[in-house]
């Protein structure tokens, strides 16, 4: 039986969200949870893996509540988690602009923006909590941009027509993460959180089917150790690095999630990946990552390519009448501010027509000339100065003089471990927060919504819902000598020894690059039946070659960056196979998932609600062995699915 001969198992159902009016579901859920007695909280241990917005906020808040928290991150400090790199902003339905915004509108925009593949209950809760997040961050001293009167400034972002994005210059993620990090450090000082830096989670420990701990590797000494707890939270981010080149940090990986998936947690919608339209194009084979230019640039920049094929004139020498402002032309009401998936695909289209710009032909212009004329250079500098500098540093070109060249790049992954309304995975006691779960963005995430979701999960949702599990279940004591623990540790040791012993002819990076090429070519901006079947074969072959021919120098008992990467790439290859299968089985286009076979007459994504209005959650059955699909039917009681139109 081949990998693509998957079977369909029992549906997966969210039992945690209450029925009834959506406006009060979260209120009612909060009232419905069992509470842990404050005096008992310090006897309860919770492990949180990852210290980004979701993990950092969760660990800090659980610590404040009095739980005994153990937190892990692979970086040298929790402050370096990749949330720090988010530029643009964070959405909140504050309606400070009096422009007609509301919780309901944010909810509506997010469900629609996600192309009707998200769970309504979760999205409504997210929109409700968005307002509290801003309050919380301001109280922590996050230096948001302000108006002259001292009140908070906002800006607009792709996919919406109100101004609800709060920001701190082009470094909003950094400032929000530092807020969460400082709250976390405060709890470390208070003794409620034990922090382990430079530790990587390599296995999940299950006892009687429940998540009871993790096996980690100390990345400095190589020591393998087990940590036990009453519940485990994974807040380990997205898996964009499966494409090798992405806007993710180099260390971002799927290993924690994949280890949990292998132990039974369903992985939902893995093929839903977001390709961000405004990134700096690839400059050569040495390229190790791609750099995002904030979406906020599309507020004032105009995207264009020459009308004429093979026009090699300098951009300044091409008159306006000979430029194709293709987003404004195709989508007059949203113009340059169409959602990310649409902007990316439009750029790909003009490049496929050979009208792309730059040495590789894989680029389009993002031009600020009009904005500079209209607002003056100073105003443009004040808004985007740091982004312009970053662009110049990387490309050697001055965007005040010459339009930026941009091209889409992998940026965010909407898929992730399946969770219910409580953020609990299909493994009892295993919770998943932030980008690591699949929950709120459907098939496409709107700009400035990732920070909102991470903080909503971490500060406000998880600390409430996890209490229900802890209060409702009597968990037996698990000691370090329990067979499940010993076995998990042995598995980690065995895998490390295996990786070190192969001693083949190819470096880990060379495998990772090849994996990235396969994924980008066949599971990138446009996917076809034929391409995906081919990719599945190529990946199976790559997996076999990896385990026979990878070369990992050094030993396991020291700081060994090649070994760290090898374990991650091995998991990425298996994930890549699942992504291609998910993309293959979903014979519709929706959001970031564009199947060439399913498009409207004018080339827009064609959803198939009759057959695919579900989240596809996959069950692992072994490497290379056909997985089992469990469907969560999505019901749209409030926002009725329509063909998304931004024209």
């Amino acid at each position, binding site marked *: 039986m081949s990998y693509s001969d998957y079977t369909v198992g029992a549906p997966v159902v969210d039992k945690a969200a209450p029925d009834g009016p959506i406006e009060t579901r979260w209120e009612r859920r909060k009232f419905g949870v069992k509470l842990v007695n404050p005096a008992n909280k310090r006897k309860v241990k919770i492990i949180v893996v990852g210290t980004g917005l979701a993990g950092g906020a969760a660990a800090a808040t659980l610590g404040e509540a009095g739980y005994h928290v153990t937190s892990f991150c692979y970086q040298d400090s929790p402050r370096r988690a990749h949330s720090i790199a988010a530029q643009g902003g964070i959405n909140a339905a504050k309606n400070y602009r009096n422009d007609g915004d509301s919780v309901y509108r944010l909810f509506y925009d997010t469900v629609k923006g996600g192309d009707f593949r998200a769970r309504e209950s979760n999205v409504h809760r997210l929109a409700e909590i968005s307002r509290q997040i801003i309050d919380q961050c301001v109280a922590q001293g996050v230096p948001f941009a302000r108006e002259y009167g*001292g009140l908070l400034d906002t800006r607009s972002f792709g996919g919406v027509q109100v101004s609800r994005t709060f920001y701190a210059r082009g*470094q909003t993620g950094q400032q929000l993460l530092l807020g969460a990090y400082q709250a976390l450090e405060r709890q470390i000082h208070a003794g409620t959180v034990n922090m382990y830096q430079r530790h990587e989670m390599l296995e999940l420990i299950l006892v009687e089917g429940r998540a009871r701990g993790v096996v980690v590797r100390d990345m400095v000494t190589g020591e393998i150790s087990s940590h036990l707890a009453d519940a485990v939270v994974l807040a380990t981010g997205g898996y964009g690095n499966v494409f090798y080149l992405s806007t993710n940090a180099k260390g971002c990986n799927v290993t924690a999630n994949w280890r949990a998936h292998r132990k039974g947690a369903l992985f939902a919608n893995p093929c839903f990946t977001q390709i961000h339209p405004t990134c700096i194009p690839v400059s050569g084979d040495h390229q190790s990552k791609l750099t995002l230019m904030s979406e906020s640039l599309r507020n004032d920049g105009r995207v264009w390519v020459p009308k004429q094929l093979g026009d090699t004139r300098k951009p300044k020498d091409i008159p306006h009448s000979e430029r194709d402002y293709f987003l404004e032309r195709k989508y007059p009401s949203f113009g340059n501010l169409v959602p990310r998936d649409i902007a990316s695909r439009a750029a790909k289209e003009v490049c496929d027509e050979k009208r792309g710009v730059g040495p590789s032909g894989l680029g389009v212009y993002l031009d600020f000339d009009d904005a500079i004329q209209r607002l003056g250079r100073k105003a443009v500098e004040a808004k985007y100065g740091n982004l312009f500098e970053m662009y110049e540093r990387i490309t050697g070109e001055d965007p005040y003089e010459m339009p930026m060249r941009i091209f889409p790049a992998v940026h965010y992954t909407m898929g992730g471990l399946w969770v219910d309304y409580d953020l609990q995975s299909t493994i009892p006691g295993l919770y998943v927060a932030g980008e690591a779960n699949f929950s709120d963005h459907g098939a496409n995430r709107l700009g400035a919504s990732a920070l909102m979701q991470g903080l909503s999960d971490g500060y406000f949702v998880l600390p409430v819902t996890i209490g229900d599990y802890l209060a409702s279940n009597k968990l037996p004591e698990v000691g370090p000598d329990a067979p499940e623990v010993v076995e998990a540790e042995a598995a980690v040791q065995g895998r490390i020894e295996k990786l070190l012993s192969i001693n083949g002819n190819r470096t880990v990076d060379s495998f990772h690059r090849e994996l990235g090429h396969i994924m980008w070519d066949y599971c990138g901006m446009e996917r076809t039946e034929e391409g995906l079947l081919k990719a599945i074969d190529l990946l199976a072959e790559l997996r076999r070659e990896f385990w026979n021919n990878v070369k990992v120098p050094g030993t396991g008992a*020291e700081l060994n960056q090649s070994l760290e990467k090898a374990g991650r790439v091995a998991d990425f290859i298996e994930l890549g196979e699942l992504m291609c299968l998910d993309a293959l089985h979903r014979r519709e286009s929706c959001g970031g998932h564009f199947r060439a076979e399913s498009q409207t007459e004018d080339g827009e994504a064609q959803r198939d609600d009759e057959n695919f209005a579900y989240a596809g959650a996959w069950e692992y059955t072994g490497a290379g062995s056909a997985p089992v699909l469990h469907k969560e039917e999505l019901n749209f009681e409030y926002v009725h699915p329509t063909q998304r139109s931004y024209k």
Partner: protein
Amino acid sequence: MKVNLRVWRQKDPVDKGRMVDYTVEDASEDMSFLELIDVLNEKLILSGEEPVAFDHDCREGICGMCSMVIDGQPHGPERSTTTCQLHMRKFNDGDTITVEPFRAGAFPVIKDLVVDRGAFDKIIQAGGYISANTGSAPEAHSTPVPKAAAERSFSAAACIGCGACVAACPNGSASLFLGAKLTHLGEMPQGQPERWERVVNMVETHDDAGFGGCTNTGACATACPKEIPLDVISQLNHDYLKATVGGRKK
């Protein structure tokens, strides 16, 4: 382009360490400095040698993890630029470039170019926060913040905690890092209640961690990739003086 590298190699914290010469023949001017090291490492691995260990993560100048002293300067010759954002077009064909870790008493070397900057987290733990438990916050607009204060606060909060200031300082002081956090929080109305306690506790922790005192050379602000202004150290001294001499603490 061809570049010669002299790289600090140190097996572990107890190894004495030494400079080792390498040549990369096929560098490109579009490469970042870290991509140059990537290329070197690929070659080392295939020839059976240990690759050079170095810290890095976001590679877009914001996480603060990369930390190399290049030709004697933390993060290299380009102003306001982290190592990961430094590109080879700033160098010439045939150059010999020295690469060392961020050295300071409070930053022990772990391996090759990787150092332990855990002391920075300790300083933050001592008071680099505003105590506001989740859920306790008032409506965001209940406390307006003058735009100028928000701007100054932001400029200080832009610190990425990389430690270049410490590596540049002849005295191994972290005063710029310390002053940046104190200015970020001290400019905000929300930061006032803990302001005096915060400065005293953070300064004590800074000193205990083995960082030196500030001797006003300004090397820190020159090396800072985020242009944290030197006046945050004046702010630090001002607040510390007020907190201790003024008897506000305790």
